[in-house]
Every structure is written in C-alpha cells, then in structure tokens.
C-alpha cells in the first residue's frame, strides 16, 4: 500500500513537473529573443555613436549580453577578427551552427537571425541601422505575442500536468 502511494505520488509529481516545464519553455523563447534584441540595440549605438568596427563591437556586446547571445557574439567577434578571407555572413553562419542547439528559438526566429547576418559587413551606417530596426521590429512583435500566449498557456500546462498526473495515478492504481 505504501509503495503504491509512493508510486502514485511520483507519477503525479512527474506529470506536474512536465506541465511546469512546458509552461516555462514558451516564456524561454521570448526571453531568448529579447536578449538578442538587447544585443542589437547595443550594436546600433556602437555603430551610431562610436563607429566601432564590427569585430570589436561584437566582442563588446558578447561581454555584456546573457543567455545564448553573449557567447555567440563573443565567438563571432573573435572569429571575424581572425578570419582569413571570409565574409561576415560566412562567419555569422558558422557561429550560428555552433550555438543553435543551446537555445529555445524556433525555426522562424532563426530565419530572421540568419537574415540579419546577411546584412552585416558591407552596408553603410543608415542601411545597417535599417537592418537592425527590421530585426528588432520582428522581435518586438514576436515576443509580445509569445508573452501573451505564454501567460495564457502557463495555467493550462500546469493544471494539465497535475490533472493528467492524478488521472494516470488513478488509472494505474
């Protein structure tokens, strides 16, 4: 009897944890996107006010940014400074394949991140700023939607987890 109770409790806990995990996942994607936006805003001011060359700007951003964005920009800046004959876009894509697995971004987000890389390296100040603005607009829109959705779904995932766990425990009893 005691074993049964313990088993049932484990099932309920596990299912509930799964529910909480899914609820958190959605919010993570928004946080990942927002961190990238923060990096873009810093890049924008580095370009506008300091005219910092890209490899240096990227390393500067890498030091300040968190989550996946920090290591990505640091790596990008370092590779760019060392690169032999490659364009900024080629280096950008190389770095993306390295960091891609550790993030919560969706395929459509990567399209924008990759597309942004295509604009790096050869644009004048105004066009570069436009490219940054385009990416930031996408993030703003996406993140707002995700946040809203996450708020709505959070409760659902959690209760689904707990109720599903209870149901499973009853069925298995």
């Amino acid at each position, binding site marked *: 009897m005691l074993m049964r109770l313990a088993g049932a409790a484990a099932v309920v806990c596990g299912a509930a944890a799964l529910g909480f995990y899914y609820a958190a996942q959605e919010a993570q994607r928004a946080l990942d996107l927002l961190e990238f936006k923060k990096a873009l805003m810093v890049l924008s001011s580095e370009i506008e006010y300091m005219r910092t060359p890209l490899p240096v700007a990227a390393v500067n951003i890498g030091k300040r940014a968190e989550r996946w964005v920090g290591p990505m920009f640091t790596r990008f800046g370092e590779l760019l400074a060392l690169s032999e004959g490659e364009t900024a876009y080629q280096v950008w894509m190389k770095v993306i394949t390295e960091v891609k697995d550790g993030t919560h971004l969706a395929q459509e987000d990567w399209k924008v991140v990759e597309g942004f890389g295509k604009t790096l390296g*050869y644009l*004048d100040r105004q066009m570069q700023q436009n490219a940054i603005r385009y990416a930031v607009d996408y993030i703003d829109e996406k993140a707002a939607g995700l946040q809203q959705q996450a708020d709505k779904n959070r409760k659902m995932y959690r209760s689904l987890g707990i109720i599903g766990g209870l149901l499973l425990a009853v069925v298995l009893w």
Partner: protein
Amino acid sequence: MITHFLGMEVARQLNALGADVLAVVTEIRLRTDKPMILSLKQMNSGGSRRNTMTSDYRPSVNDITETIERVSRHSYYAFESELAQGYITLPGGHRVGVAGQAVVEGGIVKAWRHIGSLTIRVAHSVRGCANEVLPIIYADKCFHNTMIISPPGFGKTTLLRDIVRQISDGGLTVGLVDERSEVAGCYQGIPQNDVGIRTDVLDACPKAEGMVMLLRAMAPNVVAVDELGGEKDASAVEQVLNAGVKLLCTAHGYGLEDVRGNPALARLMERGAFERFIVPGTACGVRNSGFDVGDSECGKKRWRVVDGC
C-alpha cells in the same frame, strides 16, 4: 601581413607569388577584370628604380567587393567618412585608395556605388632614415620648425615618422595629428608603428582642429602633422607658433617654389614660420628625370636641408 585584410581570392593570388615577393611589395593595384599590378622595391644591385610586376590574375567584381568588406574590417559604416575621401587606412598604416562610381549629395561625395579599383600602398617604417637630417633640425636640445617637401611616394611620411620617433625618444614631447592614420598607423587608438615614447597621437582627427586641441590639452614641445595645405591648416599653424610650440610638417611638391605656389603656405613662409626645409636632394635626380624617384631605401635618398632663415 597585409594579405590578412584582403579578399580570399586576392590573398590566395598574392600568397602564390611567394614570401620574398610579398616582402618587397610597395603597392598593389587591383582593377576589375584587369590584371593585378604590383610595385616592388628593388633589393639587388643598389638599383634606383622601382620594379613593377603584372600578374595574370584579373580580379572579378566579387573579389573587389570582398576585399572592400575585409579592408573595412566588415564595418563599412565605420569608415564612411574616410571612404568618402577615397581611402581606408589599415592597421599598420597601409593605405587603401578606392575609385569607382561616386554617390554625390549636395556637391560632396557621400559614398561609392560601385568600386572598380583599389590601390593598396604598403607602409614601410624605415628606422634610422632620418639620421642624416636630424642633427641639422634638432641640435643642442633645440628643435627648428621644419617642413618636409617631396612628391608623393618619395618617403616624406616615412621620414616624418622617423624624425618624430627620434626626437620623441630623445626627450621632446611630440603631439602628432595623424589625420589619415598613416604616420602612427593607429589601430583602436594604439600606434602600430614606433613613433617614440613621448608621442601623443590624435588619430583620424582633422589637422586644423587637432593642432589646436593638442596645444590646449597635451602641452607638446613639438606638433607634428602630415600634408599641410589648406587655409585652415595655416591659421592653426600660426596658433601653434604663437604659443611658442615647435612645428614639424610635410607638404607636397618638388621644392620650395611649389610650396610658394600654395597661398596659405606662402603666407606662412613669408612670416618666416619655417627655419628648415627638407627637400629631395638633387643627387637623387628628382628634377632631372621626372618621376624616377630613386630607391625606396629612404636613407640613401640624400635629402637636402635648406635653411629657411
């Protein structure tokens, strides 16, 4: 090495020429679909002529674009103002000149729509090339206001750099306005060429503003500046001299007459602003044989120092 800053194909072609050729390259000319042409410093037989070498390689539009991206260190936006003037300076003081289709706004070149040719001038520091002229312009702890006059490519910047280095190491505080980043070759604000231990560099700063800023802020003994010419420069020079600070500068020309042809500089000369002029010595044949400006080993060029007083 300079190939680090070029597009992949251009760098590959240059590397294929071998290290001994790369070591003596002074100029690389790239033009879309035209053969790459190199100028080489002739090392053997003490010859006094520059060699040129025409390669079979013809850069494509893409090769040129890639090279532009790399010489601007993937940061076209950071070099807009330099590019609008027609050049970018690389770390180490190498200068890349560009030509192509200009985008003009309000009568001023704002950018380039298509860049068709690049000229890469490789900077060479020649330590000790000022040894011969130095005792005449700097003696008994007294520096004389000096102007170096020579045609392009003759080595005035190289000479200026070595004078700055030597007087700076020798005890004078030098303020250097390096508008085109050619003298000190600053990268991220740090001189890549040796310009002495007492030298403060205003990198990429307009000459006239820079000279006045140095006076106010850095208390130099000598202000050094490359390629004087404009009216604004001349009035800044007057301020420098009125403050009792010494001046070391360069100007384009073959001799004193050419400089007198520039109204702003002529005014300064009349005022007696310069105590010494360094001009190409007749021995190297500048006057006699046009542009055959002799061996690039600066020390052998035999500069002539003219007393300005």
